[in-house]
């Protein structure tokens, strides 16, 4: 192929390439990249929705404000608490389910379907239904259940209005709704582990536990890292349950970064302040992603 020919061909493809990628790239520019840059810029202004006063640049004032705002700090720590509790619990539950389903038992598909079912439920519906489950007094379902398993020792509580119990209550339903998703990913990871590895380990005299530690976990590492990342990011996006079930209460026990941002922009029209909050949120997500990429890469280097 001669050189001019190749260039013409390249040029032809540039036109076609731009044409094909154009609509999607335009969408990404307009609705993701541009808004993101705007959010960055707005965080340094005093913009308010509908204010008749002029727009001003205020430097890092919004960041100073939110980092001295006890509610926002509470929100950050709630998100961290949620992530540090839900991520290990949900991952362990999903892994347990995946291991049980990977034993080649009859009826596996039925169970897998059941465990996955909550995933197709919109979170807002789940939240509304669980308000009923958490109903105060002995007639509430959760109170009734706890009364049953503690053989009557349980004192009925008002879960969603109890500063100690409101956050655990949100965690539980989030795990219920999300575990199936993680389970499916881990199950796919498990099924890719070659049977020979287990056979070799068994020949070496490795027991169940040893096989799990030295074959399953290392082989599943990338899937686990992914699941942990996705669950952590979801923990920082926590909003629907809070808005519907507790409105951040009682006394800030369930407020979150996104809930605070929505409160700022939606009920107080503080666009700039909310932008600053979402920038902080983005930096957290970025840090998590970076961490996951590093962990996953390490694995590749070793492997």
């Amino acid at each position, binding site marked *: 192929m001669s050189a001019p020919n190749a260039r013409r061909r390249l040029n032809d493809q540039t036109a076609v390439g731009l044409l094909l990628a154009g609509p999607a790239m335009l969408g990404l520019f307009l609705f993701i990249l541009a808004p993101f840059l705007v959010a960055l810029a*707005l965080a340094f202004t005093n913009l308010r929705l509908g204010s008749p006063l002029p727009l001003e640049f205020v430097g890092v004032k919004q960041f100073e404000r939110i980092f001295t705002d006890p509610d926002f700090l509470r929100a950050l720590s709630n998100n961290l608490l949620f992530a540090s509790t839900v991520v290990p619990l949900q991952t362990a539950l999903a892994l347990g389910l995946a291991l049980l389903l990977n034993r080649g038992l009859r009826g596996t598909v039925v169970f897998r379907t059941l465990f996955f079912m909550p995933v197709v439920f919109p979170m807002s*519906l789940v939240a509304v239904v669980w308000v009923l489950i958490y109903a105060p007094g002995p007639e509430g379902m959760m109170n009734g259940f706890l009364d049953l398993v503690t053989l009557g020792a349980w004192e009925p509580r008002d879960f969603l209005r109890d500063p100690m119990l409101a956050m655990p209550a949100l965690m539980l339903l989030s795990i219920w709704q999300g575990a199936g998703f993680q389970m*499916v990913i881990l199950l796919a990871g498990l099924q890719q582990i070659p049977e020979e590895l287990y056979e070799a380990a068994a020949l070496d005299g490795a027991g169940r536990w040893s096989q799990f530690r030295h074959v399953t976990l290392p082989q599943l590492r990338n*899937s686990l890292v992914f699941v942990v990342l996705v669950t952590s990011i979801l923990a920082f996006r926590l909003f629907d349950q809070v808005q519907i079930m507790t409105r951040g209460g009682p006394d800030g026990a369930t407020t979150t970064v996104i809930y605070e941002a929505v409160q700022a922009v939606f009920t107080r029209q503080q666009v700039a302040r909310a932008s600053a909050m979402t920038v902080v949120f983005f930096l957290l997500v970025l840090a998590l992603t970076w961490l996951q990429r590093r962990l996953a890469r390490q694995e590749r280097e070793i492997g």
Partner: protein
Amino acid sequence: MKASRLGRLGSYLALTGLALLFLAPLAMMLAGSLKPNERVLVEAGTLAAFLPVGASLDNYAAVFERTDFLRFLFNSVFITGTIVAAGLIVNALAAYAFARLQWRGRDLLFNLVLALMILPFEAIAVPLFYGASILGLRDTYIVQILPFIANAFSIYLFYSFFIGLPRELEEAASLDGASTLRIFFAVIVPNSKPAFASVAILSFLTWWGSYLWPLLVTIVPEVRPLPVAIASFYTLPPLQWGDILAFGTLMVMPVLAVFLMFQRWFVRGVASSAIKG
């Protein structure tokens, strides 16, 4: 892995116990939706919560009477359906351009796509909300659809699939002088059904339950989708739990039916999301 008989029994017991816990809220919702309103809360703490004693469809009738349920359902189907359908075309075309064509700016743009993948919607919700408000686009379908069609992760999923397709498929067609677009529709699409199914299912799961955005930009029932409709139905006095559960049941039934029919595809689609790592 082979399991001993005892191990198998233990596994079944564990699975059954867990399945009951997973099913309890769903069973309660279904049973409660059939019960008289005042009995739902009273019986929630007992086993009667799962038994639709005195079952009737009154609550379902009340849902249609008290809310514009069919309108909400239509809105949800229309909004999600359009995002998914338009997203399949737009993102697959872009992915194809990235995976197969040689063009200037390709690598730069593709890196941008990879970078945008990590940007969650919440990070851009504030400026989008501000824009929608000042442009007067609130309470429209367009504001609930257009921003979500182009999707970096969908592009990446398609890209990963296309890059693994054998090149011979297209080369045969291109010798026949077929245009790029024709090759895409005649050769690539028919050979990429799993990728299309995965992307469709993942984006469906993402947008069908979307709550934050419609909460921010819709106020009139004419354009509100189901997730915000159920939340506001729950706050609409009088609090009638039977009606709320009937609304919830009506809301998940169609999706559940689709899921049960295509559950293999759902599972495969979700599993494929993990290739991101």
